């Protein structure tokens, strides 16, 4: 029953071409601009991983975060036209509604991820298949708190304000996560970054070194953010029952 619904929801996303191409294209352009000239740097920032690998995952983190945030924009847009009320008087449960929104976000995220993998390979990124899989798994898990954040934003804001909120939010999370440049190893910023989920998304690139890119701290940070943001999102949804 939800499958047909899901299919149309995906169709809607793909048809919104301007949005689709922008959200897909922007990380790609950034990647080639930053990583293109430095494709032969093999030990980037003394981390042991190559420059293209670092930025492939950094830009993937950026692109997939944006994809998850875009769920929020879509929820806000549906609320603004009263469509959420129309859906509430159908048998579609709120659980299914969110599942469809999150899955749609994930579909977008996977497309963005694959595009960046291809771009990465074109600049010489090479990993074993188990490393690719492990990295992809970590990124997909790392997106869970962002899905909750997207839903929270979608229920708190109007479509007018989601643009700036999402743009600003993503930039800040990207900066603190080390998407634009590595944050170094000493001082306040790298210390703070370890409590930010986007940092751990970017850290997924360290699979190339073997071992586990996420420390216990990383897992705990992800879980805590997920719990807190889901709780807030659920509260925002319950409060938002009236007419907009």
């Amino acid at each position, binding site marked *: 029953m939800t499958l*047909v619904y899901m299919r*149309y929801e995906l169709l809607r996303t793909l048809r*919104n071409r301007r949005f689709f191409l922008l959200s897909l294209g922007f990380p790609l352009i950034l990647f080639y601009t930053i990583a293109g000239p430095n494709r032969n740097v093999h030990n980037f920032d003394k981390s042991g991983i190559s420059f293209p690998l670092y930025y492939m995952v950094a830009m993937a983190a950026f692109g997939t975060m944006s994809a998850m945030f875009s769920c929020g924009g879509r929820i806000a847009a549906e609320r603004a036209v009263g469509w959420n009320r129309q859906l509430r008087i159908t048998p579609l449960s709120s659980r299914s509604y969110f599942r469809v929104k999150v899955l749609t976000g994930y579909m977008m995220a996977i497309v963005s991820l694959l595009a960046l993998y291809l771009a990465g390979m074109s600049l010489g990124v090479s990993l074993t298949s188990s490393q690719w899989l492990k990295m992809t798994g970590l990124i997909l898990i790392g997106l869970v708190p962002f899905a909750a954040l997207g839903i929270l934003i979608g229920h708190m804001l109007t479509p007018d304000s989601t643009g700036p909120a999402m743009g600003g939010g993503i930039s800040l999370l990207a900066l603190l996560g080390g998407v634009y440049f590595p944050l170094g190893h000493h001082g306040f910023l790298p210390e703070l970054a370890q409590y930010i989920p986007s940092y751990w998304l970017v850290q997924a690139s360290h699979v190339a070194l073997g071992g586990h890119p996420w420390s216990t701290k990383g897992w705990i940070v992800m879980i805590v953010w997920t719990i807190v943001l889901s709780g807030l999102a659920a509260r925002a949804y319950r409060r938002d029952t009236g007419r907009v």
Partner: protein
Amino acid sequence: MATADEPSAQIQLSGLVKSFRGSDGPIRAVRGIDVEITAGETVALLGPNGAGKSTTIDMLLGLLEPDEGSVSVFGRSPSEAVAQGAVGGMLQTGQLIRDLSVRELVAMMASLYPAPLDVEETLELAGVSEIAAQRTNKLSGGQTQRVRLAVALVSDAELLVLDEPTVALDVEGRQAFWGTMRAFAARGKTVVFATHYLEEADAYADRAVLMAHGAIVADGPTTEIRATVGTRTIRATLPSVDVDELAALPGVNSAERRGEVAVLHCADSDAAIRALLDAYPDVRDIEIAAAGLEQAFLALTGDADSGDGRPPRGASASSEKQR
């Protein structure tokens, strides 16, 4: 209790009360509403803006929780009935989501119901077959309204609830709309609609529930409601005749005076006009009008106000509606 488990053929609104927080204290939107609707009935909730119609409908649909009282839709709570696909609805405000064609949107909504109507049949019924391939964001106001109706109809639900469905439509559009509704109701469906168009309630409902200030002021078959205040009204310039004398004429239910003009509410206007001309040959400027629900509404809400001891806000609200 055995009776509670039996499937009920009724929709019951019992003692519904709902207040909202306003800038100066709580606004009592609905103050104690009791309505029973039998399956298959077409019922109009009629009243001016602010009468509490939308609030009542939101409670019927489970979108709002009542402060007091309860709602039962065929023996279930509204949210259970909605979850089982027994309710289809068209809300007062709302547009369509974009990036789908009309047909795709209706099919998308159909997929949510356990036993939906055929999509093509729905498009036909709602009169949107010709625009089925158009994108939902490229429709006129009237077309959008019809697609919203299609979205409600595709549920093929036992209960269809429409909140002021024809507000955005022109006269022609309204007629087509109600033609569709009649066809749907003829399948044995229960239809509840809110309107402030008195002629709509009169023409399309079996029964009208008149609301003002969050309470019910009259409830009955539309014919009966008209009968309570006379089916026709005679207005005539007739100074210096006592109203009681006029009210005693054959065929007249009641009479009132507005300056030089006498207004007679008549059960039988034919008898009344003959008697009037016989008794007062100098009567001038005679107008006979079908009362419709308009007069019934004014009389009933007017009474409710004076009984309440408050200024006749209902009267001003209703005259606003006459525009």
